[in-house]
């Protein structure tokens, strides 16, 4: 993980091979323990994947580990069937709209507000900022009932943008907090010389702040994307037919035993994208996590 620097090892000049072997033997239990623990942590996900590539008929009597004794039973037919499943394709698209849409919104709106709180001077600025920070404590349960009614009135119920707007609003306090703190730390001279050169605030924001703030913005974007891609509760409340993949799978859960050939591959599909994002941007994700332990 990017965040953990390797431990400092002080080389011993008198290190001989025998000493090395001895030291390795002394540390063998640690290695062994880590291998066992790592295995334990990996098994559930592997189990989900192997379940997803087994025909339902094979899963009625034996667990997913049957694949180790009889690899020939593995099949992509579950996935094949799913990719011809109109419901799942629609759900995946909806998930993408919600996740991408609200992430863009949070990043843009959050960066603007962060900039205002960091570099613009207007009366009451700090009080407004403290108010925004205070909103971090509001659990989203507080908004479900009133927004359910409001969405009904304004036609936002059962739309992807209704769900995305909800996520965007609840992502904002953290976004503003994170970006404001990052922007405040940017070198003051650059901004001042840009102002002296006559650049307007909008130009400074687009040309200077956004590029310079990229590390923090990336952390925020990845965090928000994963957060909303994985959401269940908000979509469950505000979606009915327009639902992301989590809610779509939840609809199949009632028939867990018989629909396992749909549930397992669909769950695996739902976690492939977050995993890719995670592996591609691991560093930013961990940084966001470290900064965002408040959420």
């Amino acid at each position, binding site marked *: 993980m990017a965040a953990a620097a390797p431990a400092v090892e002080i080389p011993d000049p008198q290190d001989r091979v025998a000493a090395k072997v001895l030291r390795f033997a002394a540390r063998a239990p640690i290695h062994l323990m880590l291998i066992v623990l790592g295995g334990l*942590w990996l098994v559930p996900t592997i189990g989900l994947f192997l379940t997803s590539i087994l025909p339902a008929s094979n899963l009625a009597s*034996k667990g997913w580990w049957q694949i180790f004794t009889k690899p020939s039973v593995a099949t992509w037919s579950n996935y094949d069937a799913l990719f011809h499943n109109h419901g799942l394709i629609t759900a995946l698209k909806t998930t993408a709209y919600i996740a991408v849409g609200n992430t863009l919104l949070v990043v843009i709106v959050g960066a603007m507000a962060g900039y205002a709180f960091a570099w613009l001077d207007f009366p009451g600025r700090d009080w407004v900022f403290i108010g925004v920070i205070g909103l971090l404590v509001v659990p989203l349960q507080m908004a479900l009932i009133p927004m359910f009614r409001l969405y009904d009135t304004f036609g936002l119920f059962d739309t992807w943008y209704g769900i995305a707007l909800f996520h965007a609003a609840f992502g904002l306090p953290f976004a503003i907090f994170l970006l404001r703190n990052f922007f405040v730390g940017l070198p003051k001279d650059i901004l001042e010389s840009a102002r002296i050169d006559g650049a307007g605030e909008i130009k400074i924001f687009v040309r200077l702040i956004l590029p310079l703030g990229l590390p923090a913005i990336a952390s925020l974007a990845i965090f928000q994307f994963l957060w909303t891609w994985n959401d269940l509760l908000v979509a469950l409340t505000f979606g009915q037919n327009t639902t992301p993949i989590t809610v779509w*799978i939840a609809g199949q859960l009632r028939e867990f035993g018989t629909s396992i050939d749909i549930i397992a591959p669909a769950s695996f599909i739902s976690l492939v994208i977050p995993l890719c994002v995670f592996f591609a941007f691991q560093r930013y994700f961990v940084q966001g996590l470290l900064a965002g332990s408040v959420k």
Partner: protein
Amino acid sequence: MTAGGITAEPPVAAAPPPAAGPGRLGKYGTGAIFLGPALFLLGVWMVYPAVYTIVRSFFGEHGFIGTWVGIDNYKTLFTTSTLLTAIKNNAIWVAVVPALVTAIGLIFAVLTERVRWAVAFKTVVFLPMAISAFATGVTWRIMYQQDPGLGAVNALGKTISGVFSPAGVLSQASPSTPGLQTTSSGALVLKTATHPGGIVLLGLTGIAPDQVPKSAVQAVTPPPKPGDVVGTVWRDFKPGGGKVGVVEKQELGLPGVTVELRDAAGKTVQSTTSKPDGSFDFSKVSQGTYHAAIGAQTFAKPFGGYAWLGPNLIVPSLLIAYIWIWAGFAMVVIGAGLAAMPRDVLEAARTDGATEWQTFRRVTIPLLMPVLSVVFVTMIINVLKVFDIVYALAPQSEYAKANVIALAMYFTAFQGGGNFGVGSAIAVFLFILVVPVLALNIRRFRRDM
């Protein structure tokens, strides 16, 4: 939080005022443009609903104005049994999860600190963080299936229990020979007494063909031996039926059965197992009256698996799955704290003669305390709001047992619950629980800023 690398320097006391020259917006104007969208979203989606929900919690189930009920909704919250279960369960979550997650994270962080392939381990443990709690629920539902043939957790349990109390060779069988009686311990005792030199026939039926041990061959009645008690235990059934209590052609011996010889007082004096043809032999039996018996362990049921998703174990099952998700978070945050630890302090402690354990206990832990408390407090908040994993992992029939506050709020207000009054009260209750914890976190943040 200084470990992340994106924490900022202390705020500048006052940003330089923008020059209000011609063609520029005034102080308020620019601020309004940049802040407007954020304040609109926050106002409509957070401030207004929060106020609404608080007010709404004092009104009745449906409608609003004119249905004032005072604090009745809160009374309902603390008197309805499913809601009380939710509060009680959330208390269990708070008591168990933050402490365990922090402890496991600390152990993992320390273990991986000086291992070269630590990145691989950390990635594996951290993976569940990227996965939705919902998908995790599905994943663990597969793991927790009760049939040891299907659920990995119970399969492991079966393997372990197979070592300590193996399943009997015949899990199903009933006596066939007249006089063979089931005792309270599960053993079968032949009422007809025997003596040295005698033959005992222990016929069993009710054994499905696929339950007969593979090594079984044609049953044989051994010839009597002076001083010994011999006999046969066999499947007293052949295609077409056969005669009860008589060893016939096509009837198979039952190998591996534990046969006991009990004296007049009922004490087992000898014990043996049958051969593939079902025969057995107690040698050098002293004079007296004995009863032959088939030991209870022969009929021991195989491990059937624990009902992890049943009413008694559902809460611990949920806790395990949840800890599986969050251990990686704790490990990474604590690992970053460890990496940022001043090496010279640790070195100084070691130079002064402190043992590894003393250094860890007296230097590392106190220095890590701020980081540990961040993890702990974050976990308390997460656990108070827990929803997805309960929804996905607990079968619907066990929701009442697995209930937590967020789940209760959802099902009270939506999904056929339709009680916005009590639903609002539950939301406010959750809000009140979260505020002090998060306020603590924010104060720490303000200090770090």
